[in-house]
């Protein structure tokens, strides 16, 4: 019987296990890595900005930035691309957070672009894909050279290929075949004038990590992340919130359900899930047992085609 499967060839000390006094929990390891990324950007770039939507990933990102530079203030301003179809609870949270931490917020508004005739409303009413133009315009006008996003590689298969430091052309484009190899923790932020770098400090976090961290750090979120009674209607297998953005249409029936949101984005394409999870522990239990991914459960725009996210990223989307 072959039992001696492991051969220790070295003569050094046997490494200690997970119960070593020097072990870091996975949350501590992820936190430490993210803080390192924030500080690299602060050290290497002239004008970084944090994309902040009031969604849980950007909230965690901001929390990490606050920790990274404490007791000094965060040396970056915030940028929100407002689709005009945001949940009021989230906008209220956004403004309150900005004020609480004495931050500067820039808002790039999709509605302004539509009003000026520079963007046209899509027939399906979804404004999520329209964010790219105001985003690139804001990056250009703000002369931002590094833009932090809360994207995670576990969200989607194109995002699984994303680097922590992701170089974008002056058109904001992502070319997955020409990415720089990312070696050790030596992030290369060099870029030519006009180019910028997207930075993803939460690359290695999963949805569950984010929720566990929110619980551990006692981070406040907009209430719509927890179960509440809400008027919704069904479209394409998702529960959407009615609103001026274009729902419900004829034949779509509004009903009251107990729901929560797993992601928060444009109201036209972000669905709620049936849920009784009213607090953090309950949310964690619910996600751990869920058979659906976060985006699969609640994002209509990712379902448009097999490569929807990759295609949008190539155009400059986050």
């Amino acid at each position, binding site marked *: 019987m072959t039992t001696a499967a492991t051969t220790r060839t070295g003569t050094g000390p046997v490494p200690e296990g*997970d119960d070593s006094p*020097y072990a870091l929990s*996975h949350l501590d390891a992820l936190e430490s890595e993210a803080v*390192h990324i924030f*500080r690299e950007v602060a050290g290497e770039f002239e004008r970084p900005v944090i994309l902040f939507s009031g969604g849980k990933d950007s909230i965690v990102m901001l929390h990490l930035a606050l920790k990274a530079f404490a007791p000094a203030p965060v040396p970056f301003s915030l940028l929100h691309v407002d689709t005009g179809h945001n949940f009021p609870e989230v906008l209220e949270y956004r403004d309150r957070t900005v004020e609480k931490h004495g931050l500067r917020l820039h808002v790039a508004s999709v509605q302004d672009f539509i009003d000026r005739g520079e963007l046209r409303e899509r027939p399906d009413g979804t404004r999520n894909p329209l964010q790219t133009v105001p985003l690139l315009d804001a990056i250009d006008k703000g002369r931002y050279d590094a833009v932090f996003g809360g994207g995670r*590689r576990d969200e989607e*298969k194109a995002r699984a*290929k994303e680097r922590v430091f992701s170089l974008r052309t002056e058109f904001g484009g992502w070319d997955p075949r020409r990415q720089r190899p990312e070696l050790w923790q030596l992030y*290369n932020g060099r870029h030519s004038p006009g180019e910028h770098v997207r930075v993803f400090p939460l690359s290695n976090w999963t949805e569950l990590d984010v929720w566990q961290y929110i619980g551990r750090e006692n981070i406040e979120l907009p209430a719509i992340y927890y179960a509440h009674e809400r008027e919704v209607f069904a479209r394409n297998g998702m529960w959407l919130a009615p609103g001026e953005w274009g729902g419900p249409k004829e034949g779509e029936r509004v009903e009251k359900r107990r729901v929560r949101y797993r992601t928060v984005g444009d109201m036209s394409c972000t669905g709620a899930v049936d849920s009784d999870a009213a607090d953090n522990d309950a949310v964690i239990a619910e996600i751990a047992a869920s058979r659906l991914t976060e985006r699969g459960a609640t994002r209509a725009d990712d379902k448009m085609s097999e490569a929807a996210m990759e295609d949008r990223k190539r155009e400059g989307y986050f």
Partner: protein
Amino acid sequence: MTTVTDGVLDAGATSLLRFATAGSVDDGKSTLVGRLLHDSKSVLTDQLEAVERASASRGQETPDLALLTDGLRAEREQGITIDVAYRYFATPRRRFILADTPGHVQYTRNMVTGASTAELAVVLVDARNGVVEQTRRHAAVAALLRVPHVVLAVNKMDLVDYQESVFAAIAEEFTKYAASLGVPEITTIPISALAGDNVVTPSANMDWYGGPTVLEHLETVPVVTDPSNDAARFPVQYVIRPQTAEHPDYRGYAGQIAAGVLRVGDEVTVLPSGATSTIEGIDALGESVDVAWAPQSVTVRLADDIDVSRGDLIAPAAAAPAVSQDIEATICHVADRPLVEGQRVLLKHTTRTVKAIVKEIRSRLTLDDLSQHPAPGELVANDIGRIRVRTAEPLPVDAYADSRRTGSFLLIDPSDGTTLTAGMAGTAFAEDAEAARAQQADDEGWDF
């Protein structure tokens, strides 16, 4: 903490293992990764449905699990993996970050990328072919990058009638070879990724095998080494000076501890200036602590008001690295444009980027037989070679053998920022390192 019994994801799992997979095109790596994700219930219904939909739309009768891992349009169109992808899964015991590295053409640089942050590498071989050139290359890259644990997965055991003798011969050959490269720990596992033998569940077809399954090994391999064995290394990333009414005099040096342990009261040297001071305080992300260790991100306050800025290294006064402008290194060239002698580059080491010149390209390594070819003139994409670089400013560089973090560097093209080269200071493989140490005792040797 919440524990879910149906095994989807366990919220109680606390430790994290980063690992990489390496395999040739037809060794079944995608199947192994797909099987690992699928059988550990890390593939969720909507992902599986998407794969089933895509497979059906191309007329395939069974879902192609490789579509789970091939995320890019071009990859799905061509049925190949182009770039490293990172995947995440969890079991009740541990969280995993998998660097899924493609196995063809550009495999050396891709594997270097994946292996640079990995604590474990899985090398796949086809049981019918045994140890081939590719296997030796993968083992050599893992050894070169000093990946602490290497797993040889002998795949397609179903195609050799699950014979113990076939496995034993391959395992012995590989173990001998990898040990000669200085791989510190080698685990060999007979599997069939397609049939599911010994990937997640123990195989009923190989009762002669008494070792762990791939997943069980991944769950139990020790990931924490004792940092108190290593000299402390703290590259300064950023100086925190709030200058607020509340903190008028706060001056903290922010960074991630690259190696070892820092304690309040430690006498330290700041390099390259050589100024000395004492650690007065350590702030671990909002909490004041007496002791911190790698890889924690902290902020260090010193007792004396000395000049410290981004790019400096704080190290124990008694065990500081030597500072030098000449770096001898083994490199893997990762860019499509070649590296030539006399080339002016930027060198990024920890938090410091300096100008540098490639003074000499000493040799190019043939990974197949580990022979060195002297004076190749240039190194092209995927080449591994030995070079000497002269930097514009002195740097505190450790041997990569002693510290993956402070012994590694990048060469960058100053014209457009392209990452050219992954560098590892000092000698390449462990046996060379032993020889160099012996030699160093005789004639002072290099200044690392």
